[in-house]
Structures are given as structure tokens and as C-alpha cells.
């Protein structure tokens, strides 16, 4: 007899809003099938979670069940032989990675990345999966705060070395990927295009074959669709730079928003993988095989994440004129004032409940629905208010002690966020120094010079 396990009819709901006010960024990696999305995520997590005491100043964490899956995939990716993660069959848009920053008394959670993994075939095959699945992916792309565009280094290498059919496959793959990157912001026209980083995966294959980042960049820029994407973003960049000049604002990372970096990434590092003819379903085929006992030296795994946050913050600030910012701040102050005022009034009624026994039960009953909305700020305001009335005995010393604790936590939180941003910016600067050829817009400029300004 078979053991049957009942499952819920519908997919599980998104993680419940548990009052977590840590900022979250939705990130989607847009890449063709087998471009390396799943391996990149698993190795990224393992790389950035395994060393909390590193000089990086942060580490990643996730929930237990997610960690088990990511660790298993990463272990598989790092093991010798030809086994890689199984191809992905379901859109998974609930991947939550949290940045932890060490503070006195323990790590502080300062930022969440909400990541989406999915079958890359959806980009090129409108019959793969089903309608709901493809719609889930479209939704994730439309809502993304930042995008990684994944270019398959293996397809690029094949195009470099094989020509003909391999070049057509590389072009087709790139065209589909660019189309989705471009469609994302078009869905929500009111929003600015989210920051974009181009990641060339399996970079070790290209390095081992003697190719440089400049060559890879030029190959990308030679593709008409890729150039079109850069031109669209370049316009945005120019506008932003004009805004910046008007505002005379200093940037965190020194780059304009909309700046597209080409980041070569390898999850295992140079020399770890060799192309070997293997039996593939009875047909001799050249496959990527991981060498036995090889020391793994991942390349730039942490750079894409480090690049999106400064870019996103830059973009948010650049999109806000000083007047808009002032209006937003005024609105926030007014909302806080109203919330606190209402809180005081409700809590005032609750306080009366303790002295006016005659009406106590009724007042308590009426206040019950608001119990969950009472905030620390309301309590503080109430304390200050009650201090003016002798009949309510509130200890001023205890109130002051509580205020001090709150102030300290607030300062630490600000420091942690600031430290994280500085760490990101420093890492991106180091990458830009170490990898000549990272600037896609520079590649576009060179291409235009070489083609006397034609075809853009």
C-alpha cells in the first residue's frame, strides 16, 4: 500500500508580515537555461555565510530549511566530477537572504535580499512550465528592485571558439535575456529602471582559454540588442548626471546610477573545471568536469550583491528632488504625529480603565482591537504625558533609562547600515580597479568610435 501525504491545494502564501522592518530588496537574476543561476546563488550563499568573522564586515544568513537546500546544492557544485545542481523546475520567489553585521552584543540584521530562482527555459520557450509559472516569473521581473543579467560564459566561449551555430546560439540566448531585462521596467512605467549588473558566469572557462574581460565586453557590445539596452540606460545615466551636477551631490560609489558593470564570476575559480568528452545518454559529448582535489578560488562572487545596494540607494536619492524629499519627510512627520496622538488618546483611555472601575470592562473591550498597534513611541509619549499628572505614578528614572536604551539601539542600527554600505562601496571600487573592461558604457563608446557612430 502506498503512503499518501496530503498537500495543500494552492502554493503557500508569501512569508507573513511579521513586523520585520528591515529594508528588503527584490533581486532577480535573468538568465537562460543552464546559465548558472542556481549554482551562483548556492555558492554565493555558502561563500558569504561561512565566514562571519571575515574582514568583509558582514555575512549572509537564511532560515534553516533554505540553508539545507543551498548547502546541498553548493556541496554538489563543489564536488569533483560532472555532477551539477539538477535543472530548476519551479519558480521560487521566496528566497530570503539576510545581511548580518557584527555589533556589540551580537550580529544585527540590516538588510534582506529577496531572490528569485526559476527555470531559465522560460525565457526562450513559451510552452515550458505552465501559464501560472511563466506569469510568476514575469511578476518577479516586473517587481525587481535590482537585476542581475546572467550571460553564460560557456555559450560565450563556444561562440569564440566554434563560430557558426555556436555564435547563433549565443546571440539567441543573449537576445532573449536582454529582452526580459528591457521588459522589466517597461511593465511598471512609473518606476525607474532598476539597477542592472551583467554577470558573465563560468568565467574560469574563459580565463583558462586565455580570453580577457575586454574581449568579452566587446563581444557583448557587438550584439545589437545588448547595445540597445545600454543606449536606453545611457540616456537615463546622462539625465541622472545632470541632476547630480545641479544638486552637487557626492556619490557613495563614485559611479552614476544606471552604470552597467560587466562582472566576471566563477563559483569555483580558474583551473577547477576542464572540458572532457563524456558519455551523455550514450553519445560522446564534451562536458564540464570538476577536477579532483582542486583548491577552489571563487572569482567575484560577492561583487554583484555589493554593487546593487549602493546603486539602488543612489538611484532612489537621484530620483528625489530636494523639494520631493522635503515633502516626503513632512508627510512622514505628520503621519508619525497622528499615529502617536491617537495612541496616546487610546492608551489614556486604557489608563483610566484602571481607576474608573465602573466603566473599566467596557473601555477595555473597546481598546482590544488596537492592542497590536501600540508602539514604543506611543508608550513613550504616554509616559511623558502621564508624568504631568500626579495621580499616575510613573518612575521618571526608569523612563529615562528606557529612552537611553532605545537611543543606543538606534545609533547602532544606523552605524551598522553605514558600515555595510561602506563595505559594499569599497568592494566595488576594488573590483573596478582589478578588472579592466568592467564598464559596459565604456565598451559602447569604444564600439561607436570604431564604427564612426553608426548603428545605435
Amino acid at each position, binding site marked *: 500500500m502506498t503512503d499518501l501525504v496530503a*498537500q495543500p491545494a*494552492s502554493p503557500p502564501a508569501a512569508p507573513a508580515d511579521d513586523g520585520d522592518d528591515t529594508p528588503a530588496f527584490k533581486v532577480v537574476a535573468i538568465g537562460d537555461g543552464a546559465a548558472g543561476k542556481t549554482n551562483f546563488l548556492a555558492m554565493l550563499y555558502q561563500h558569504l555565510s561561512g565566514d562571519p568573522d571575515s574582514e568583509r564586515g558582514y555575512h549572509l544568513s537564511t532560515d534553516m530549511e533554505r540553508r539545507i537546500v543551498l548547502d546541498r546544492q553548493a556541496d554538489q557544485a563543489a564536488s569533483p566530477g560532472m555532477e*551539477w545542481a539538477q*535543472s530548476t523546475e519551479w519558480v521560487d520567489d521566496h528566497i530570503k537572504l539576510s545581511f548580518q553585521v557584527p555589533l556589540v552584543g551580537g550580529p544585527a540584521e540590516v538588510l534582506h535580499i529577496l531572490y528569485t530562482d526559476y527555470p531559465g527555459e522560460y525565457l526562450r520557450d513559451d*510552452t515550458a512550465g505552465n501559464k*501560472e509559472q511563466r506569469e510568476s516569473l514575469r511578476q518577479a521581473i516586473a517587481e525587481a528592485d535590482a537585476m542581475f543579467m546572467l550571460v553564460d560564459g560557456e555559450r560565450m566561449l563556444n561562440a569564440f571558439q566554434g563560430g557558426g551555430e555556436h555564435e547563433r546560439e549565443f546571440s539567441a540566448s543573449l537576445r532573449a535575456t536582454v529582452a526580459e531585462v528591457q521588459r522589466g521596467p517597461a511593465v511598471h512605467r512609473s518606476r525607474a529602471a532598476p539597477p542592472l549588473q551583467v554577470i558573465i558566469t563560468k568565467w574560469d572557462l574563459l580565463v583558462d582559454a586565455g580570453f580577457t574581460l575586454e574581449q568579452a565586453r566587446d563581444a557583448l557590445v557587438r550584439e545589437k540588442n545588448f547595445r540597445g539596452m545600454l543606449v536606453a540606460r545611457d540616456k537615463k545615466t546622462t539625465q541622472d548626471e545632470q541632476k547630480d551636477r545641479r544638486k552637487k551631490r557626492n556619490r557613495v560609489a563614485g559611479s552614476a546610477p544606471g552604470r552597467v558593470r560587466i562582472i566576471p564570476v566563477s563559483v569555483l575559480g580558474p583551473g577547477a573545471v576542464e572540458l572532457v568528452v563524456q558519455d551523455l*545518454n550514450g553519445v560522446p559529448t564534451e*562536458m564540464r568536469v570538476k577536477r579532483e582535489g582542486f583548491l577552489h578560488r571563487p572569482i567575484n562572487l560577492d561583487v554583484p550583491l555589493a554593487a546593487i545596494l549602493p546603486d539602488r540607494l543612489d538611484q532612489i536619492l537621484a530620483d528625489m528632488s530636494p523639494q520631493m524629499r522635503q515633502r516626503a519627510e513632512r508627510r512622514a512627520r505628520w503621519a508619525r504625529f497622528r499615529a502617536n496622538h491617537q495612541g496616546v488618546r487610546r492608551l489614556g483611555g486604557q489608563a483610566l480603565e484602571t481607576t474608573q472601575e465602573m*466603566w473599566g470592562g467596557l473601555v477595555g473591550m473597546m481598546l482590544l482591537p488596537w492592542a497590536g498597534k501600540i508602539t514604543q513611541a506611543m508608550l513613550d509619549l504616554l509616559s511623558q504625558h502621564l508624568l504631568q499628572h500626579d495621580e499616575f505614578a510613573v518612575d521618571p528614572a526608569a523612563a529615562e533609562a528606557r529612552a537611553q536604551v532605545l537611543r543606543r539601539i538606534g545609533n547602532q542600527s544606523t552605524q551598522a547600515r553605514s558600515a555595510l554600505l561602506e563595505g559594499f562601496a569599497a568592494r566595488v571600487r576594488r573590483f573596478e580597479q582589478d578588472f579592466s573592461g568592467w564598464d559596459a558604457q565604456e565598451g559602447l563608446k569604444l564600439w561607436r568610435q570604431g564604427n564612426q557612430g553608426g548603428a545605435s
Partner: protein
Amino acid sequence: MNPPVPTLSAWPFLVTRGILLGYRVVIAPEFLVSAGDAGAVYASARTEPGLSTTGPITQVVKAANGEPLTLIHRRLPAAVDDLGAVPLRDRHGRPFPLIEGYALRGAHEDVLVTDEQWRELHRFVLSGYRRYLAGESQGPLLIPSREHSLNAPATPPVRPAPAPRPSPLPGFGITMVALVIVGAGVVAVLLVLLLR
């Protein structure tokens, strides 16, 4: 003479990928195929951390017309040989599973699938999958499946009767409304006094 064993109508399905093409519904119940809704059984491919995919799973989903469907399915590694010793791989060298099962119209619990019925399903699915692979380079093939019979549960599932709701006392609602109105007025006066 033994009484006839009650049966349920069930349609085989298969969700998997090919060597070239990505995951999709390869075999689907003919009534879903003719309705253009074969994708309804793709829900069997759902994976997420903490969700077991090893044993047979029963899942109730909705077809596009709102009709509930019960999917009873399991995952097996796709293999070059039928015994599963040599994994089948996609063109990038990655292994993948076959998600095979039965679809039943309506919501059902405790449907029995015998070992023999799983074996029969697997034989049917493999024969369809071979046809799919043979023509994959020409494009995806969707194979409709015909009705099979599964054993109905020996005893219908027993659902606990819903607990009777206590009937409100006569006049309770009116009393509460009056209390709230009076209370609100009093509280308003008290709050004005407090905040003065």
C-alpha cells in the same frame, strides 16, 4: 461471491523535461488536453525547502474551469535504462526527475494506488516519454492519456462533524449595541478630560 471493488477514474500524467527542451507537461489527461488546460497538472512539479518530494504525494489543485483535481504523484530520477541505474541528463549534463502520477476529477482523500498500479503507470509513462524524446528536436509533444481505474477508499473518509455554534442569547445584540454607544460617549468625555 465477493462484492465488486469500488473504483475511481484516474488519468495518467507526466511532467518532466527533455534532453533539449525544458520542463513541461508531457502526458496529460485527455479531458484537460481537449480543454487546453494540460498545464493544470504542472502543479505536481512544485518544490520548495521543507517540502518532501520523495514519497507519493496527494495534492488537490483547481483546473482552469474551477473544477478540483486530485493529483497523486511521485518523483523518480529519469534514467537511460528502465531500472534507473544510469541517469538521463539534459544537454548540459544535468540529471532531472520524472514526475509521474494519476489525476482524478474532484477532491479525493486516501485514494489507494497499489504497487502494481504504480508499475503500470510507469510503463505507460516511459512509453510516452520515449515518443516524446524521439520527436523532441521537432518541438514539444503533448500526449493525451485515457481513463484508468484506481481502487476507491475502502471506507469513505470520516470527517468530524462541525461543532454546533452556540446560539446567541435573545436580545444580546441589541444590548451590546446600546452598551457600545453609551460607552463610546463616556470614553470620549473621559479622554477629553484626560487630554485637557
